């Protein structure tokens, strides 16, 4: 407990410190460098194929490179991946969630996804990218380095990739920053005020997402076990099990508790108004997730290839297992079961995708098909909270399982980068480090959301009036109806 408090203190001071961190030194006038030799030029070309550093990228290197810009294949794949991740939110998640609510609230879900896309993009341009991906301290990057995406041009930022344009990398990461708060919307659907949502998301990005993302992926991040040799917590998270799914899932739980149940829940039936839309959304999420997971290699290399395979196997297995569990237990495999299972599989494999092999992926698929299934079928009933669309059951439970299983199943035979800074850790005590990362994530998500939620409740209120909830959010908050016959 004491230790936890101390950690919290450190994190707090680091968080605040981030804002005042000095801007990274600008590229100082470098001494003239030599042209590369023919052999060096060939080696640079090979580096492109192998996603390695150019000769010029070595610290203290004395040569230039003839191919110092982005590498087309890696750039092309990352543009494709970024588009795929946007597709996951617009319209993927919007449909997955929008189909599950009642007809009178269908548009409100779309407005949440669209509004978050716009708002978070502006925050990201302003300072978000800089807070996450510039060097700073263990919790925050520096606010100034890349503010207004200054200096973020088509050249690679070799802290993150030798061959992908930094502007593409920044947009790719933006898509993650968009979908994460959008996931929370599932828990608070059908009753939260739109103004409160916009304020909440703004605060949540600064209190939870930006620090989480920096800690896990920032070059000097606290839990960036793979790339930061000085990481205090030697954890790994390939594509965002902690940053995206756990942070959103646990925040979702807190927020839906603060908000209270929907009028009539659980007595009044609230069946999905369109399972068809929900299934379309699921298909789009699955397809888009290839950008999310395989794109997280930040290259079209063998690690991406492995992530592509594990993502497929985990999603397919979990989808089938969830529905077959229903078949056995209830006699009816449901479409929502297949869809939930697929999403759960994708969630659980997210932190593991580039670190585990095909058998690991199948195991993950099994766990993802059974454990979140139980969480949605049993836990929710027992505990009685109203997590409208099971963000907690799928993303928090799934994300947490995923983070833990990654600790058990990761292997450097699949991803040689695990040998850089984690030689004695992977295969030994990695699971312990993962537990620490889970703890920090819980801390940020729960504390951040609680503070924000209470604040907003006091200041402007979290919830629409009973009348509005009865009529539906679409008509009252957005002045539109989803369908006119």
């Amino acid at each position: 407990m004491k230790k936890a408090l101390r950690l919290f203190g450190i994190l707090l001071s680091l968080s605040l410190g981030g804002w005042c961190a000095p801007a990274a030194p600008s590229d100082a006038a470098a001494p003239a460098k030599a042209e590369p030799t023919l052999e060096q030029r060939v080696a640079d070309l090979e580096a492109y194929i192998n996603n390695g550093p150019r000769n010029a990228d070595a610290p203290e290197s004395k040569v230039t490179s003839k191919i110092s810009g982005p590498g087309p294949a890696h750039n092309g794949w990352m543009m494709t991946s970024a588009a795929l991740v946007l597709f996951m939110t617009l319209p993927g998640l919007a449909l997955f969630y929008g189909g599950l609510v009642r007809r009178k609230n269908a548009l409100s879900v779309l407005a949440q996804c669209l509004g978050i896309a716009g708002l978070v993009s502006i925050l990201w341009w302003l300072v978000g990218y800089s807070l996450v991906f510039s060097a700073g301290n263990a919790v925050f990057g520096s606010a100034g380095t890349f503010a207004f995406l200054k200096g973020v041009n088509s050249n690679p930022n070799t802290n993150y990739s030798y061959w992908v344009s930094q502007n593409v990398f920044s947009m790719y990461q933006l898509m993650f920053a968009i979908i994460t708060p959008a996931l929370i919307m599932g828990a608070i659907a059908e009753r939260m005020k739109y103004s409160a949502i916009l304020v909440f998301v703004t605060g949540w990005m600064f209190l939870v997402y930006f620090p989480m993302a920096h800690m896990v992926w920032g070059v000097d991040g606290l839990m960036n076990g793979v790339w930061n040799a000085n990481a205090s917590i030697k954890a790994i998270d390939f594509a965002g099990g902690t940053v995206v799914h756990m942070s959103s899932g646990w925040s979702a739980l807190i927020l839906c508790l603060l908000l209270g149940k929907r009028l009539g829940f659980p007595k009044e039936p609230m069946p999905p108004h369109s399972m068809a839309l929900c299934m379309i959304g699921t298909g789009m999420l699955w397809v888009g997730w290839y950008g999310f997971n395989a794109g997280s290699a930040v290259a079209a290399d063998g690690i991406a290839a492995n992530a592509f395979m594990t993502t497929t196997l985990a999603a397919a297995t979990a989808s089938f297992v969830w529905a077959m569990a229903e078949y056995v237990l209830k006699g009816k495999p449901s479409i929502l079961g297949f869809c939930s299972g697929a999403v759960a599989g994708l969630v659980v494999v997210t932190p593991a995708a580039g670190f585990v092999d095909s058998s690991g992926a199948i195991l993950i698929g099994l766990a993802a098909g059974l454990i979140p299934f139980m969480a949605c079928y049993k836990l929710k009933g027992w505990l009685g909270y109203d997590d409208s669309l099971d963000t907690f059951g799928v993303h928090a439970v799934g994300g947490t399982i995923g983070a833990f299983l990654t600790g058990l199943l990761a292997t450097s035979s699949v991803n040689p980068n695990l040998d850089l800074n984690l030689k004695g850790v992977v295969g030994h005590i990695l699971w312990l480090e993962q537990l620490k990362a889970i703890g920090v994530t819980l801390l940020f998500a729960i504390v951040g959301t609680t503070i924000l939620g209470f604040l907003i409740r006091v200041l402007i209120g979290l919830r629409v009036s009973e009348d509005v909830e009865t009529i539906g959010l679409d008509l009252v908050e957005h002045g539109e109806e989803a369908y006119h016959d």
Partner: protein
Amino acid sequence: MKKIEAIVKPFKLEEVKDALAEVGIEGMTVSEVKGFGRQKGHTEIYRGSEYTVDFLPKIKIEIVLSDSRLETAIAAILKAAKTGKIGDGKVFVYPVQEAIRIRTGEKGEQAI
């Protein structure tokens, strides 16, 4: 004049329509309704939330007709709509005071 209101199972609509046509009834108005009665509903489960759906889809057929044709029409409906299983529906008869054809202004039995 009378009005027949028949509540029938949806897949029986075509047969009832044809049976009525056979006895010379050529005007009717139909709507989709939900019925509640002895026939039991079903259960739907969405991620652990079970909903009992008590209301079952039915079709309501409304026919305004002269008193003289009432009996044949009812007989035709009863025959065509019957499956013998619970939930087959009902036929209700109401008095009608007037009928007017909008197109021509014709009234009474001329209008139907």
